[in-house]
């Protein structure tokens, strides 16, 4: 009797402790609530303007390319790395893409598809270079990708002479750029598919498991037989390829390259990933969190414009959210290590 009550008493204690732990770990849930609250506030204050189909569509279109980059960035940061080159790789890829399409005659689906493939291949190549330099040459990711950030943008400007290029096949702009399926813009569909694949791969597959393991303790992963270097190369290659895809999406949307328009994509993507609860120290994070992290700034910006708040406040607010997110991560780690 007394033994039974004893064990009955200890069981709930460990369980509630585990649950508390899981809640702390689940800063994604918290940040998701923040996003929902923002949406609710804006929608209540200005239902006509904020909650309109058009406005929602605009928010999604605006976030689509950043989301694609940020999915790749999530894998990189979970693996305890960083990629500053994404914006430059995006620009470089869009330049290669349009050069290929121009060389092939600027029209028709085959040309458009060749352009998409060329853009993604160019991004993949930069990603491979990043990965090899980081994993094999063991140069810190911050330095490697700072280097390729400059190199990719410089080469894009050398190739174009610093002038934005036009000449995207109408097929591409009309479909990927402005087209919709069931009212949903293709840009958003592509971003949603990439995101869904990212969520599934990171969460349910061996590739995802290795990404967490490598970010959590690379030496432990190596001793367990994981090919750590090869995995890191794959992670950076994936991110490069997604940057290339984002470059093609941006081309289709604007019918032109946008050489000067992606200087802060890297920081925006990193901010989104970190706001979404992914730890800069690696080993922890989700793609779903990143989705939330992408939408918080874009919803804020959109809402502030509608409410006629000076849009600069958006940057202040995002900065605060970012720092708060990292602070929570620190507390979380300390609490966990303590237990």
């Amino acid at each position: 009797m007394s033994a039974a009550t004893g064990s009955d008493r200890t069981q709930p204690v460990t369980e509630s402790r585990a649950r508390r732990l899981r809640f702390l770990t689940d800063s994604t849930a918290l940040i998701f609530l923040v996003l929902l609250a923002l949406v609710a506030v804006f929608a209540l204050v200005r239902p006509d303007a904020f909650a309109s189909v058009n406005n929602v569509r605009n928010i999604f279109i605006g976030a689509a390319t950043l989301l694609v980059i940020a999915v790749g960035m999530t894998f990189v940061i979970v693996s305890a790395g960083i990629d500053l080159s994404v914006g430059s790789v995006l620009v470089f890829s869009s330049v290669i893409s349009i050069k290929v399409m121009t060389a092939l005659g600027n029209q028709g689906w085959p040309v458009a598809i060749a352009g998409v493939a060329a853009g993604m291949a160019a991004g993949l190549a930069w990603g491979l270079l990043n990965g090899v330099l980081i994993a094999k040459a063991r140069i810190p990711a911050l330095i490697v990708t700072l280097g390729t950030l400059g190199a990719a943008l410089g080469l894009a400007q050398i190739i174009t002479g610093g002038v934005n290029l036009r000449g995207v096949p109408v097929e591409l702009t009309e479909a990927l750029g402005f087209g919709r399926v069931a009212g949903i813009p293709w840009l958003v569909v592509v971003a949603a598919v990439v995101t869904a694949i990212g969520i599934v791969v990171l969460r349910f597959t061996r590739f995802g498991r290795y990404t967490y393991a490598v970010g959590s303790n690379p030496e432990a992963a190596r001793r367990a037989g994981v090919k750590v270097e090869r995995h890191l190369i794959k992670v950076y290659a994936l991110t490069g390829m997604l940057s290339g895809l984002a470059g093609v999406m941006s081309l289709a949307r604007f019918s032109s390259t946008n050489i000067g328009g992606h200087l802060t994509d890297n920081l925006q993507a990193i901010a989104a990933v970190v706001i979404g609860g992914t730890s800069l120290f690696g080993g922890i994070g989700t793609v779903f969190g990143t989705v939330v992290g992408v939408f918080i700034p874009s919803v804020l910006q959109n809402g502030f414009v509608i409410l006629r708040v000076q849009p600069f406040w958006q940057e202040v607010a995002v900065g605060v959210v970012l720092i708060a997110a990292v602070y929570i991560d620190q507390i979380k780690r300390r609490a966990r290590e303590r237990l």
Partner: protein
Amino acid sequence: MSAALLEARGIVKNYGHVQALRGADFSVEAGKVVAMVGDNGAGKSTLVKVLSGIEQPDGGEIRFEGQPVALASAARAHALGIETVYQDLALAPDLDPAANLFLGRELLRDGVLGRLGFLDNKRMQQRAEEAFADLGQTTVQQVTVPVASLSGGQRQSVAVARASAWASKVVFMDEPTAALGVVQASKVLDLIRRVRDQGIAVVLISHSMPQVFDVADRIEVLRLGQRVARFDPHEADMADIVGAMTGALEHGEASTAEPGGSSEQARQRGPSGQEDA
């Protein structure tokens, strides 16, 4: 030839100017527990890493089942059935115990999903629970919380369970009981005996002499990167071993000049047999 399952001969390992191993010999037979003892910094962990494929030696030879082998990676050692509990445990703190147990050897789902790399987490969790149950229910209650949230002893249990679950030939345990309570430590010793009874060679590194005498079939002493003596625990006592560890018994030094000194010879000659060859 010797009946050694795994044998190291004259292993040299340098870290910059530090000579961690200076021609170390070591051997272990199937179904035996060999204790490797030595002072701090004697080179025990380094030898374990070399024999586990995660550090490459600068010299010497490794033989497995009588044949020279190159243990170029952990995966190579795993393929030969060699598993290791590292002194620093080598766990991924953000992964749960089950994921750590199967790290690098994940079970995949059946069919197409498996070919796409989808994990079979349920099956891995079940098998992990079974492996941890062997070490007593109290050690690891939940296989789905991050390892970082476990106590030091629980983490050690995870590492021990992982190595013994996978080992089919040799298991190295580098101070597997250092963080354990009395009960858990004796469970680990029980586990070592059970693993040995399956015909697996066990190498136990421990600073606890009672444990060593309790479980070892042979004691090998490492000092300054070399094996300096081998003892039969039934015939040696603590003073002999401490003497060899600290260098008080200088006669032990002879063993390194005799890489062919096989286990049979050692046993025939009894404890500290090398000196009077």
